[in-house]
């Protein structure tokens, strides 16, 4: 389980002064995880790249305006990515998952087709959750963050995160069983 670690204050301070080395370090540290997170939410490599690019761009603009995170940079970046994805889905509803099924990592066409179908079902069920429920499920059970870290990413108290998580799980289970019926 990933524990919450405050960002290196010196690194953030250097980033605030637009130190190229520090910014490159931050990008190298957090962009791979953010990309995976965006892929899980969006299921599309191009959109995931766009999400990462926009997240870091907003981070830069926040730094320029004297804003941005003071300590927990990772939680901040995931919050920005989450907001971007939520805005995206608000603007344009997600495409039908069957049209963009990821190729499964197997050579057997039957198994691949079955896997693609299950992936679609799962993604569709996830999209049946509210954006915050999706975020809490992914951060908790896929990224394996602790509740305290999730609370920072969602900007909510830990207690609220726990009840959100409880509701999200119940709903996901129900949606999955409806999908398989």
């Amino acid at each position, binding site marked *: 389980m990933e524990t919450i670690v405050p960002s290196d204050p010196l690194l953030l301070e250097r980033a605030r002064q637009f130190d190229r080395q520090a910014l490159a370090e931050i990008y190298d540290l957090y962009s791979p995880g953010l990309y995976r997170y965006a892929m899980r939410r969006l299921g599309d490599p191009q959109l995931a790249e766009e999400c990462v690019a926009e997240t870091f761009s907003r981070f830069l603009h926040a730094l320029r305006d004297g804003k941005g995170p003071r300590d927990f940079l990772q939680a901040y970046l995931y919050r920005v990515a989450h907001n971007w994805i939520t805005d995206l889905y608000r603007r344009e509803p997600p495409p039908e998952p069957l049209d963009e099924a990821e190729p499964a990592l197997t050579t057997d066409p039957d198994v691949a087709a079955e896997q693609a179908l299950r992936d679609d079902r799962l993604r569709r069920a996830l999209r049946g959750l509210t954006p915050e429920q999706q975020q809490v499920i992914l951060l*908790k059970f896929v990224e*394996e963050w602790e509740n305290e870290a999730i609370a920072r990413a969602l900007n909510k108290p830990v207690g609220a995160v726990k009840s959100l998580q409880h509701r999200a799980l119940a709903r996901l*289970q129900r949606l999955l069983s409806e999908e398989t019926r």
Partner: protein
Amino acid sequence: MTDLNDLDPQLKRELERLKDVPVRDPQAAARGRARFLAEAAALQPAPRRSPAAPRKLAWNFAAVVLTLLLLFFGGAVGAAFASQNALPGETLYPVKLAVEDLRLALAGTPQAEIDLLMQFAAVRVAEMNQLAAQGIVPPTETAARLDQHIRLAMQLAAGLDDPAMSVALENIRAQLEADASSLRDEPGEPGRVLQQTRQMLQQHVSMIDEGLSAPEQFRNRFRTTQIAVTTTPTAVRAAVTPSPQGSGGTSGGDGQGQTPTPGPKTQTPGNPGPKKTPGPSGGGAGEGGKGP
């Protein structure tokens, strides 16, 4: 507290499948990184500048006093630090360029040099934008130096092995596109210079596209072409000048643009004074600080 192990086994299996994510395309990742760093260079806060002459003079005076004080009390390090926001034509601008030359001379690897050169390219673009925003025509020397940064970066990339060259060229390309799109649309002569600069950047993008599709031709082009260097740091010039063919290159290497061998320092570039838009020529590339 619920965690993955407490979940219904079926749900747990489903969620665990989400952990499998297709591998990220390394070239897309490299492009994203380069774009981020280019945007950072473009957004780097610059000091607020007023077109009002008295205030500008006061600032120039303050800069000179500060430099003298720093030279006296803090030495060259302080002056170098103070020069970092200087624009072409200002008193401290040559110091800024000298610091860049020094940083290049100290870069340990061709990749580090390429990164620095592209960082300096973004700085040149930002300088040109700032001058144009004030109605000042960016000096041709600044555009020439920008052109040199890019050519030298490409030449260093041409000396890398195939995979490294490909990634380096992708990075350079992404930054050039970001630089080109960050150039402002300004009226009059300053805008025309920025437009020409944008075209120059786009020509370099095309050159890189050719290099990505035909790496060997790209290498040959840089093996046989000597960049007309007027204000280039010695170390970089030494690194990128092919040693054979009697061109007077001093690399002592195999012409592949390997680690630079710092040669004797040459003069740093001059301090060409920018021209104010509508006025007369003002003597061309004269000394800086003569703006109205």
